């Protein structure tokens, strides 16, 4: 499993998984989903989403004091079901459902976690592993004066330009 967090103030649309990630929203994807999703990979590269951790999905053992799920609820089944309903909607209704979907899933996930339902729910659902830079105390450098001369070296831009060009071509190829 891969746990990611939204790192863009604008919502990030993961088209190839039919999913949306909001700023600071944490989500778990299976390794297969993550590896196969070009959008997830792309937005990771762009820093719009950040990988918090990779971990194994929680598998209950006999010693775990958990309740068996009454109807075998799995969070992915639930997401799939909501998407099916959503696809039947049109226009603004569809947009509204789509907007609410990620948050709804998160609420349901927390609820499932709190009643210790088994399934693919992970063991660590409540740990916040993202730190907003605003939470970092200000670093006051008042009264400090820098007299710093870094080494400066100029190099030809050719290598950078040719690499950038290759990157553009690869991006275009992947788009088509």
């Amino acid at each position, binding site marked *: 499993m891969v746990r990611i967090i939204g790192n863009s103030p604008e919502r990030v649309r993961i088209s190839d998984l039919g999913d949306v990630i909001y700023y600071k929203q944490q989500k778990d994807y299976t*390794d*297969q989903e993550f*590896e196969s999703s*070009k959008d997830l*990979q792309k937005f*990771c*590269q*762009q*820093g719009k989403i*950040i990988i918090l*951790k*990779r971990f194994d999905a929680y598998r209950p053992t006999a010693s775990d004091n958990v309740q068996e799920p009454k109807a075998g609820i799995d969070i992915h089944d639930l997401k799939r079901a909501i998407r099916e309903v959503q696809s039947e909607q049109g226009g603004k209704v569809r947009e509204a459902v789509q907007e609410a979907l990620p948050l709804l899933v998160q609420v349901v996930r927390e609820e499932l976690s709190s009643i210790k339902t088994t399934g693919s729910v992970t063991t660590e659902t409540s740990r916040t*592993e*993202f*730190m*907003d*830079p*605003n*939470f*970092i105390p200000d*670093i*006051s*450098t008042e*009264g*400090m*004066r*820098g*007299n*710093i*001369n*870094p*080494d*400066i*070296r*100029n*190099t*030809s*831009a050719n*290598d*950078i330009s*040719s*690499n*950038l060009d*290759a*990157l*553009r071509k*690869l*991006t275009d190829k*992947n788009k088509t």
Partner: protein
Amino acid sequence: MAKSIDIGTCFLASASRDDNQQIQIKSIRDAFFDLENEPQVKSMLTMSKVSFIEAGDKLYIIGDPALVMANMFRRELRRPLSQGIISAGETEAEKVLSIMIENVVGRAKNDNETCFFSVPAGAIDRTMDIIYHQAMFSKILSGLGYKAISMNEAAAVAYSNASKENFSALVIDLGAGMVNVCLIYQTMIGMTFSISRSGDWVDESAARVTGSTAGRIMAIKEKGTDLIDISQGDIKTLREREAIQVYYKSLVMYALDAIKNEFARRKAGFELPTAVPIILAGGTSLAKGFKEFFETAFTSVRDKFPFAVSEIRMATDPLNAVAQGLLIAAMHYDEGSRK
């Protein structure tokens, strides 16, 4: 205009394209040494153009001269970063680092100017909090007016050195604090992790067994220890060089084992359709003969290596490969944002 900064345990290096369309690399050793602030000392430092920061009754000598002073006084060099990440609560070091970053990358000239900065991957052999590290540098760079975006440092090396393989490579970035490994295929990261020993570990281990200091070992190492022919050099430091070679070998084998184990652990994730090169980068890879030394070690594990390797090569500019790769990513990001 996009910029980048590689925040390493040993060096801070920024890259940007100047008005003449040249790439400008600014770098400084990520180290300092504190002295009492006395007028004569300050005047001497100013005349000899030594970088320093004045803070009340203290002077912090910055960069390479700090290493010289530490060796002269037989005291350990102070480093704002340890094993690849900033130590939470080291407020004095954070302030020094903040001023150093401002001097290396400068202030943003335009609103929302993009600056990509490097972050290490999570370590497989110790508990490591990169969350605070990432947030701290995001805050410092945002404070300078940038839109700060983080990127895995080993992945950045592929951006600057693997275009002919369509950005597919196994990058081993041997920094001072840690070794960062990234298996990347056409810019998609298949596997990335770090191990918490690298150049500093070599220095500290060699210092321990020879009764020296890590700073002195670092100086001997950087003067040009030949890993293939250790007898080359001053006879007075032969014992130290032998120790450096022993720990280099241990480091390389440890890294290769880690790659094999991690690949096996994540085997369900991916399969490479073609052979990829191994690209070596980072300051610790600059030791004389390192590539040949690595190739010899790799030969012993090649049969058991989990994927085909086309060649082993050094990054074009091992010390600045991360900063250059980050700059390429930043420029590409800017182009995408404009569309």
